[in-house]
């Protein structure tokens, strides 16, 4: 075997491996979308691996009869509240970490990084007691407050890496010309950081949109979408939900998150404290 064939063979191997993995990831998503719109007959027809007759009936029933539309509305409200609260707390903190040097900075930073991994069930279960006392149980604000605790470490890390990317000189130049630090922040740093912050907002949205444990525990009637879906179709109890509703539910839950991340994919990795180039 000469070098050239060996090279070609390696390339072929590499491409076929990658192709397999990409298919393995993408295929289930495509299949679940097709099945979400499959007619009942096609679904139960053992010959039809790929359905040929389509209907929007399942998605519509799920949305308007089974309450997924209300779930979506609740999820959006919770996610927006989470973005507002976590950004108003997280942006100053991210700015402080990016632009100042002070004693104890590393410890604070390390604690925030470690808190990304804080187990949510541990927070949610005891929180119920407090929420009952404060009348926050079964409210969207209550869920948003808990989601903020989950999202805040990420918001601080992302915003600090975004602010660190905005050159200090610009801000200092403005301050030399008599603008206050606050003025410089609002007129220089913030506008330059805006695209990054928009991406961070999308991540926060997706995190809150996807979160199910806290939402299921803290609400009963005002359920977010995942909590609503979980209560209708969980394995043992809700096995009764016909399968095509499950496919429709997967479709409704996945679509917005995938679109958001497509726009924000560049920033995906600074979420975990690291940047992809």
């Amino acid at each position, binding site marked *: 075997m000469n070098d050239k064939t060996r090279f070609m063979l390696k390339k072929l191997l590499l491409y076929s491996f990658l192709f397999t993995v990409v298919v393995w990831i993408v295929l*289930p998503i495509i299949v679940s979308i097709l099945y979400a719109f499959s007619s009942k007959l096609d679904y139960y027809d053992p010959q039809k691996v790929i359905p040929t007759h389509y209907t929007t009936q399942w998605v519509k029933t799920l949305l308007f009869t089974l309450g997924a539309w209300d779930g979506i509305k609740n999820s959006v409200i919770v996610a927006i509240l989470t973005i507002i609260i976590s950004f108003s707390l997280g942006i100053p903190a991210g700015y402080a970490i990016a632009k100042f040097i*002070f004693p104890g900075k590393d410890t604070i930073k390390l604690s925030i990084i470690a808190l990304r*991994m804080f187990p949510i069930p*541990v927070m949610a279960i005891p929180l119920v007691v407090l929420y009952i006392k404060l009348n926050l149980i079964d409210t969207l604000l209550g869920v948003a407050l808990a989601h903020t605790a989950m999202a805040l470490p990420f918001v601080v890390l992302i915003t600090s890496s975004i602010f660190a990317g905005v050159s200090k000189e610009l801000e200092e130049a403005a301050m030399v010309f008599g603008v206050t630090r606050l003025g410089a922040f609002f007129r220089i740093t913030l506008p330059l950081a805006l695209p990054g912050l928009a991406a961070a907002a999308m991540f926060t949205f997706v995190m809150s949109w996807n979160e199910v444990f806290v939402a299921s525990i803290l609400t009963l009637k005002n359920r977010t979408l995942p909590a609503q879906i979980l209560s209708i179709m969980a394995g043992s109890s809700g096995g009764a939900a016909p399968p095509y509703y499950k496919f429709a539910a*997967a479709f409704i839950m996945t679509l917005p998150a*995938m679109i958001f991340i497509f726009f924000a994919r560049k920033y995906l990795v600074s979420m975990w404290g690291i940047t992809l180039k």
Partner: protein
Amino acid sequence: MKLRLPYLLLLPAVLYLVFFIGYPLVQALYLAFTQNGHFTLDNVRRTIGDPYFWQALKYTIALAVVIIPIQLFLALILAVVMNRTFKGKDLALYALIIPLTISDVAGGLIWYTMLTDAGFLNKLLLNLGLITQPIHFFGYEYRNMEFLAIVIEELWRATAIVFVIILAGLQMISKEYLEAAEVFGADYWTRMRKIVIPLLKPSIQSALIIRTLFAMQVFGVVWILAGRDIPVLAGEGFYQLTFIKDYGVASIYALTIAALSILLGAMYVKFLKAEYLEVRT
């Protein structure tokens, strides 16, 4: 004033986190170990007397033990492959990170579509003539298959996070080290073993910790695909709280997850000894 400013900026976020993490921990201890204001081990006795507790502990750990090594292995290969330049790389990268956006509940539903009796996989295999009867994945009598379905879903959904962390670590390794080694005659595997893997250790450690701690709180996918057929710690905590309304026992589940997380996190830090806790911007 100038010295105090960063602390003032950090204070709201830090206070918020301290409250939302500190308060539940204290409250959980209180709920778990007191009754009418007196110290009691009743809840502990009730929890450990329940076979579901041990099952949950067993399955939570078993899932992690099966899933995480495969994920690490897959992610390492993928990261090495994706660290080259080739045609269509951006598209492949996007495809590989799509699962990061998918929640565990949605992931469970998607794999239900694939694996259920009239689902894609069974129909495909039937039509190809590879099987004559559908393979049953769901139902109490097929618990091992449910376990397998959860493993498949988690490999599909949660390998991406390991991959992303390792790829980022790989990209930070200076090409000069590798070139130098090549000049001195090190072949591909030697370079891998002596340079890439050691330098990658912090990323691997970070990825392992994150994945392991998330595995300790696995819930949505299990609840969707198996319900309580396969009990897990978070699921039992959820069940005790919402169905049984036993706050004490639910709190013990919460504390068990917390204790396991701390224990495993500490073990990784000790045994893999690395400086992973650095923000790299």
